[in-house]
């Protein structure tokens, strides 16, 4: 242990590793004593402020090719964990298949941060206000978690709505690495929208965010997904709002029912960014706006 210039006790990092292969990374993580580095945009400020401590090894996963890129195969879309938010924002394939992600990526932090931040890091950071979570929840996304066990790579898939446990907490074990986020290619009649609020478009931690996704066939909604950020300890699926809309025609009555149902899903808190009352109000406004927006198109 050493003292830095603020007299904080900081554990020593005994090794820096930047493997090019996934199996090497997973072996390095097998003892659960590695801090994963990718873009560094959350890790750097969190460790500098003392909110987070380094483990014995610093493991840079950014050089592992198989963790980068967006792939559509067999009706499934797979985004490698190290793919940057800029890559998502500029992906022509995603703009076509899942424009709600393109929209959310466009509202993410600033260009400099989008160029460095990874989608896997944004999910593992598990902020209630994480901008990629609500749109991915509406796409029924799952995350792939890999680890090295009994001399081989083991992987499991966890639905994103089962992944978050609380602010900064997920079901991922210390020896596991999030390798990709995957979701089924949305149907051709799938419509999606994302709204986030903050005093300005850039570098704003969402006061509230709402994502909506559904199939819209002859004016009727089905497979409705509504997700919210910054209204609870984790990003969440708004199941009551979804139920109010499922099977309904997209009309004034359905929109009013959805808006009313937000009170059962959103359990916001007062904090430095907004009051609970204001957050609850914004959620109602955003749900109404996204639904009216979809109806207009």
């Amino acid at each position, binding site marked *: 242990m050493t003292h830095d210039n603020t007299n904080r006790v900081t554990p020593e990092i005994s090794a820096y590793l930047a493997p090019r292969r996934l199996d090497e990374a997973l072996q390095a993580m097998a003892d659960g004593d590695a801090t994963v580095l990718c873009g560094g945009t959350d890790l750097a*400020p969190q460790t500098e402020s003392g909110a987070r401590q380094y483990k014995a090894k610093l493991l840079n996963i950014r050089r592992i090719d198989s963790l980068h890129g967006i792939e559509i195969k067999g009706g499934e879309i797979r985004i490698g964990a190290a793919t940057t938010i800029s890559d998502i924002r500029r992906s022509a394939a995603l703009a076509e298949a899942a424009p709600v992600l393109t929209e959310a990526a466009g509202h993410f932090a600033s260009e400099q941060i989008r160029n460095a931040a990874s989608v896997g890091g944004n999910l593992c950071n598990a902020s209630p206000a994480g901008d990629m979570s609500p749109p991915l929840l509406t796409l029924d996304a799952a995350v792939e978690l890999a680890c090295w066990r009994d001399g081989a790579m083991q992987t499991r898939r966890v639905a994103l709505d089962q992944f978050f446990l609380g602010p900064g907490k997920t079901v991922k074990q210390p020896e596991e690495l999030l390798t990709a986020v995957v979701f089924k290619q949305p149907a051709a009649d799938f419509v999606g929208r994302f709204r986030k609020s903050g005093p300005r478009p850039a*570098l704003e931690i969402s006061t509230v965010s709402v994502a909506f996704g559904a199939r819209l066939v002859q004016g009727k909604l089905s497979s409705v997904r509504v997700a919210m950020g910054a209204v609870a300890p984790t990003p969440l699926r708004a199941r009551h709002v979804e139920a109010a809309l499922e099977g309904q025609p997209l009309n004034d009555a359905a929109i009013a029912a959805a808006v009313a149902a937000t009170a059962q899903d959103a359990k916001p808190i007062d904090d430095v960014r907004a009051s609970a009352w204001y957050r609850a109000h914004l959620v109602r406004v955003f749900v109404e706006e996204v639904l009216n927006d979809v109806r207009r198109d």
Partner: protein
Amino acid sequence: MSVETEIRFRLNGREVCLKVPATMKTLAMLRDKLGMTGTKYACGEGECGACTIKVDGKTVNSCLMYAVDCDGRELVTVEGLRAPDGLHPVQQAFVDHGAVQCGFCTPGMIVQAHYLLENNPGLTREEAQRGLEGNLCRCTGYTKVLDAVEAVAGKGACAGGKGACLGGRAPDAA
């Protein structure tokens, strides 16, 4: 002290090799280890953009980037953005339009503006405004900055050709 790692990378066209602690950020390496003080330390947490540099052609906040991750990469700082005969056209436009007051945010603004123009030579004022969202100025505001960027847009000054900047090339090879 955390473990030190030897890294090698290109900085404004020149090969650099040095040892850095695992947790050192690129900004601290540039300023404190390499004496390249053009890149500024302001907020230190990715909010203000004063430390913007280009890495492999894309701008990042160097205060958030781990120095060890520079290994094998191509860095361009504001010192690397000059034309063979003096100031780069983006720098000249900032001077001409009075887009500088205290000057602390200027290196980051210029690197980011250069990157935006390089990727979109004809960018509009609105596009410039969105692209510069991650760069804060606490003195003058943004009108003159946007005037300067708009004046360069459409002239192809950042996409090669006449008046092109040195980009990654070695200054003494110019």
